[in-house]
C-alpha cells in the first residue's frame, strides 16, 4: 500500500512542481486528444446520424462494421498507419510519382498521432452516436418534417433530442484517445519534447523500472481524465428538467 500512497504524494508534487517537461507532455496529450476528438466528432456524429436514422440496404452490415471498428486494436491501427506513412509505404510512392519530389515526413510527428487517434476514436463516436440516434423515434423526424423542417434541420433536432447519448459518444471517443498508448507510441515514436504524451511517458518509465514515477504519471492522467469527463457529464445532464 505504501507504494501507492507515495505514488499519490509524488503525483501531487510532480503536478505542482513546475517541471516544464511534464507540463509539455500534459499539454501535448491534451492537444493531440482535443484535436483528434474534434475531428472524430466531425466524422462520427454525421456518420452515426445517417446510419442511425436511415433505412437502406446493407445497413446491418454497415452497423456490424462500425461495431467492429469500436473494438479495433490500437496497435493494429498504429501498425497500419505506420505502414501507410512509411518511406517504403504506398503514400510515399504515390506522392513521389505525383509531385516528383519526396514527401515531407509525417511519421513520428504530431499529425501522424492525430491520424491514428482519429481512426481509433471515430468508430467509437460513430457507434455510440448511431445507437443514440436510433433510439430517437423516426416519427419525431417525420413530425419535424411535417412542420417544415429540411433534412439538415431534422438532423439538428435529432441530435438535440439524442444529446445525452451523443455526449456519451464524445466521452467514449475521448476515453479511447486519452488512454491510448499502442498506436501513438508506434506512429509518434515517443520522442522527448516532440511526440511524447502521458501514456507513452508512463510506458517508458515502466520500461525503465521507475514504477513509482510511472504510477504517479498515471494518477495525473487519471486526474486529468476525471476533470474532463466530469465536464462532459455536467453538459450531458444539464437541462434535465426537460428530459423524458
Amino acid at each position, binding site marked *: 500500500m505504501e507504494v501507492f500512497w507515495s505514488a499519490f504524494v509524488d503525483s501531487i508534487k510532480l503536478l505542482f512542481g513546475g517541471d516544464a517537461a511534464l507540463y509539455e507532455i500534459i499539454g501535448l496529450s491534451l492537444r493531440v486528444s482535443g484535436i483528434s476528438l474534434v475531428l472524430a466528432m466531425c466524422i462520427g456524429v454525421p456518420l452515426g446520424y445517417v446510419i442511425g436514422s436511415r433505412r437502406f440496404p446493407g445497413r446491418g452490415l454497415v452497423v456490424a462494421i462500425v461495431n467492429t471498428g469500436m473494438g479495433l486494436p490500437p496497435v493494429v491501427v498504429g501498425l497500419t498507419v505506420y505502414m501507410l506513412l512509411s518511406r517504403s509505404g504506398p503514400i510515399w510512392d504515390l506522392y513521389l510519382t505525383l509531385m516528383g519530389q519526396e514527401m515531407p515526413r509525417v511519421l513520428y510527428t504530431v499529425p501522424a498521432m492525430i491520424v491514428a487517434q482519429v481512426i481509433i476514436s471515430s468508430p467509437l463516436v460513430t457507434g455510440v452516436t448511431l445507437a443514440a440516434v436510433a433510439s430517437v423515434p423516426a416519427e*419525431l423526424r417525420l*413530425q419535424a*418534417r*411535417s*412542420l*417544415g423542417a429540411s433534412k439538415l434541420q431534422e438532423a439538428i433536432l435529432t441530435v*438535440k*433530442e439524442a444529446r445525452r447519448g451523443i455526449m456519451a459518444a464524445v466521452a467514449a471517443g475521448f476515453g479511447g484517445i486519452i488512454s491510448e498508448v499502442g498506436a501513438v507510441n508506434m506512429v509518434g515514436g515517443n520522442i522527448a519534447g516532440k511526440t511524447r504524451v502521458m501514456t507513452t511517458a508512463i510506458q517508458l518509465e515502466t520500461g525503465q523500472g521507475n514504477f513509482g514515477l510511472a504510477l504517479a504519471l498515471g494518477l495525473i492522467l487519471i486526474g486529468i481524465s476525471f476533470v474532463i469527463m466530469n465536464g462532459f457529464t455536467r453538459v450531458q445532464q444539464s*437541462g434535465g428538467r426537460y428530459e*423524458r
Partner: protein
Amino acid sequence: MNASAHRCGGAPIITGEDIIVRYHRRTVVDVPRFQLCDGETHAILGPSGSGKSTLLRVLGLLERPTRGRITLDGRAVTAGDKGARMMMAAVFQNPYLFKGTVSENVAYGLRLRGVPKSERDDRVAAVLERVGLGGTQRQSALRLSGGEAQRVALARALVLEPRILLLDEPLSYLDPLIKRRLVQDFSRILSADGVTALYVTHDQDEAMVVADRVSIINDGAVIRTGGVDEVMTLPTSPWVADFIGMDAALSGTILESVEGIAEVLVGEERVFARTDLPPGTDVLVGIRPEDVMLFEAWAETPVSSARNQLLMRVESIEHMGSTDRVSLHSNGMRIASSISRAASRELDLTVGAEVRAFFKATSVWVQSAAGVPSGV
C-alpha cells in the same frame, strides 16, 4: 350536409393521381384518384393496416410514393418541395413533443419559417389559448398529460396557420374521457376556422363528428368516398357495411313523390323517405339502427311523427355493450334497430317474435343507385 357533398365543395387543393406505394414488393396503397377540397375536413377511415396513414404521408408530401402524381393548387409537387410542405402541418397519433418547453415546441415551425421572436411569442400565446392551454408556455413539454400533450401537438401545427392540416389518428392513444372532450375540441377548431384538413382514423364515430367528407379505405384502395352521412348510412358493399356496423344498403325504386317526401318500394314494403329524386329512380336506401324505435306488435299506434310504421319479425338479437342490436325483416326488407338494453328487456324480444318498427322519413337515406360502385 348536402346531397352533393361527395363531390368537391370548394376547389381541390390537393389531388393525388395513380398513387401506388409498395413496401418490399407489397402494395400498400393503390389509389387512382384522391381529392382534398378547400375548406373541408376529409376523413380517411379504415381498419389498421389499410394504408390510410401511408396515403396521408404521401398526400402530405412526407413520403414519396412508388409511383403517382400529386398536384397542389394545380401545380405538380413532390416531397422535396419545401415551399409546398411549408403550407401543411401534421399531428400524429403520438404527440412526439420535442425536449424543451411547451413554448419551444409550439414555436418550432415558426422558428423554421424565420418568424421574429416577439411575433412568435404572441402567436404561441394565442394558439395555446385556443387549444385550452393558456399560460403553459414555460412548462416542460415532456411532463404534460396525454391529453395536454396532444393539444400542444395540435397547437404546434395550428400556430403555423397551415393551408392544410394533416391529422393521423390524433386521438387514438388517449383514454375515452379525454378522447370525448378532445374530439369535440378538434371538431370545433376544424370547422370554425374553415381549415382544410385530412383526418386519418379507424374510428367511425370520430370521423362522423369531425368530417365533412369520408373516404373509406381497405387494403390500400379507396372503396367509397362521399359526404359523411351518405357514406355512413348507405354502405354499398358488405365489407363497408360490416366495417361501419350496418347492414348493406337496400335497393329500391321511387314510386311517387309529394313535396319532397317519396314513397319507395323496398322488396314488397313501402317506405317514406325525404328526397328530391324523381319517381322511377332506382335508389339505395339506408336507415341507421339508432333511428329505428321498436314497440310491441299489439301496441296501439303511439303518437309519433314517424312516417314509417312497419310490423316486422325479429331475425336475431346481438348484445353490443350498452345497446342491443335487433335485426328485423318483413316482406323482403331487412333493417336493424339499436335499442337500449333496458328497452330490449322490457319488450322481451325473442327471435321470431313480431315487433312494430318506427322511423322518420328524414331518417331514411336515399341515394340514386346510378354511378355508385357496387359489390366492392
